[in-house]
């Protein structure tokens, strides 16, 4: 088996995503202070904390909306700071948004198709000249999009204009669109917000199925029931600092977490 230079020099890191000593401030507000944690491949990681704890800021740093003031982020052992968003998607980081960001006037199927753009090579010339491989590639993209819609359960709505979907389905569509980029790491920003109990139950099942497809998930979520149910590990932020990390069980019993976040809930068992 061949190893590349990078692996030869450093001991192979088992982590998919490494956040190392990250600081970020906006104006005078220190949004993140010295955050370090790792995301192991094949797991579902939860990122929790009260409002304003810096969860979405952290997502934005990982997906390339902002750059950290200090510290670094590594993905698959490679530093990704300063790489533009679309390159990060190509490397395998996809995300959804807290406030759903769909292409409202486009159909459900088209939304997923566009999500696949990063995995295709066809440019304008290819599209105009209709070279045979362009046709093949577009057919393949269409088939993949259909499969993803079936996976999230929206195949029946494929031709609907996406802004006409009920809100819960728009969230599912965002997940399908993110999966279309064939990510290794999927960032879900509060996917259960605005869903009813049945819908968030189903969302939990979906997230578990996504892990079974081999996609690592980093989940920001306020719904504690969902988070505790699906997550393998949880990182707790509070006012921009890392408060604790561990298994759901450990987090539920962590005294500082209980004090700061869960408001003194009783530890089960």
């Amino acid at each position: 088996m061949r190893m590349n230079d990078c692996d030869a020099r450093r001991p192979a890191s088992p982590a998919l995503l490494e956040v190392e000593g990250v600081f970020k401030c906006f104006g005078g507000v220190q949004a993140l202070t010295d955050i370090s944690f790792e995301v192991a491949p094949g797991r579902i990681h939860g990122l929790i904390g009260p409002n304003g704890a810096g969860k979405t800021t952290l997502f934005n740093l990982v997906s390339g909306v902002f750059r950290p003031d200090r510290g670094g982020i590594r993905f698959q052992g490679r530093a990704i700071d300063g790489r533009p968003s679309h390159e990060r998607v190509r490397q395998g980081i996809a995300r959804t948004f807290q406030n759903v960001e769909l292409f409202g006037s486009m159909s459900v199927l088209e939304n997923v198709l566009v999500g696949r753009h990063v995995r295709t090579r066809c440019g304008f010339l290819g599209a105009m000249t209709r070279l045979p491989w362009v046709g093949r590639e577009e057919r393949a993209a269409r088939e993949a999009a259909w499969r993803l819609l079936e996976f999230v359960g929206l195949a029946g709505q494929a031709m609907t204009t996406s802004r006409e979907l009920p809100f819960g389905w728009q969230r599912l569509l965002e997940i399908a669109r993110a999966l279309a980029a064939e990510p290794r790491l999927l960032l879900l920003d509060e996917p259960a917000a605005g869903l009813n109990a049945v819908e968030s139950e189903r969302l939990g099942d979906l997230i578990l199925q996504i892990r079974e497809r081999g996609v690592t998930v980093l989940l920001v979520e306020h719904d504690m029931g969902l988070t505790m149910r699906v997550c393998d590990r949880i990182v707790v932020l509070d006012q921009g600092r890392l408060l604790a990390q561990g298994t759901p069980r450990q987090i539920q019993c962590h005294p500082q977490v209980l004090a700061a976040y869960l408001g003194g809930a009783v530890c089960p068992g």
Partner: protein
Amino acid sequence: MQELLQYLFSGVTNGAIYAVIALGFSLLYNSTELINFAHGEFAMLGGLSLVTLWAGLGLPLPAALILAVGIGVGAGFLFERLAIRTVRRPDPIVLVIITVGASILLRGVAMILWGKDSHSVPFFSDHAPLAVMGARLLPQSLWILAIAAGLILALRAFFKHSLTGKAMEACAVNPKAARLIGIPTGRMNLLAFMLSTGTGAVAGVIIAPITMCSYDMGTMLGLKGFCAAMLGGLGSLWGALMGGFLLGILESAGVGLFSSGYKDAIAFILLLLILYLKPAGLLGAAKIQRF
């Protein structure tokens, strides 16, 4: 009757050209929300390039056509890279003023390269004019209509069916989401510029044989195209077509029925009326269909 038909022919011919120019405005506006006031200059560039390549250098017509349009596309590439991309704070108003500056620059460069004289090129084919119910139809009019129709169909197919076209549409609908799902929005903007200036050059190329080409022909073409785009509703494909043909036909009817002195006034009266009465354009109230 015979005269009316004649006005209709010339109106439809001009209308096709206005429609193609309006299409360029709409296309760019759709992807970047920018109005390129140098757009007419790219039509001028196409027309004068054809003068040099076909009439001057004697290239075969198809090659000269493709090269002239290619020059328009290439100029759009340079324009975006050098003048638009480099702006530190891309406020819309700053960018629009840059396009006005670019139009002056392009006119100046064209004056140096081609001089102040008007140039002419022959018709694409030397058939005799057709007589249709007593009215004369120039073969060049058929060329113009055919090329405009081909261009419109190709663009529509591109936006409707190709993945790249969909990605461009996505950038227009929600740029933030587009960037974060992995569409290189910068490259898509560049592509929009090249497509837009390319269609501008097509308009210049097809109009070249029926008008005199000179370094300052772009100003009026650009303004007329802009009127047509506003008339139909900026950002709408069908709006651009409708606005173009409506403007062309009304203009030639006005010339025929009143006086040729009013030709250019008609476009601007229409523009004022539409801005006053229905600023979103004729197709504005109905669901404006993006490409």
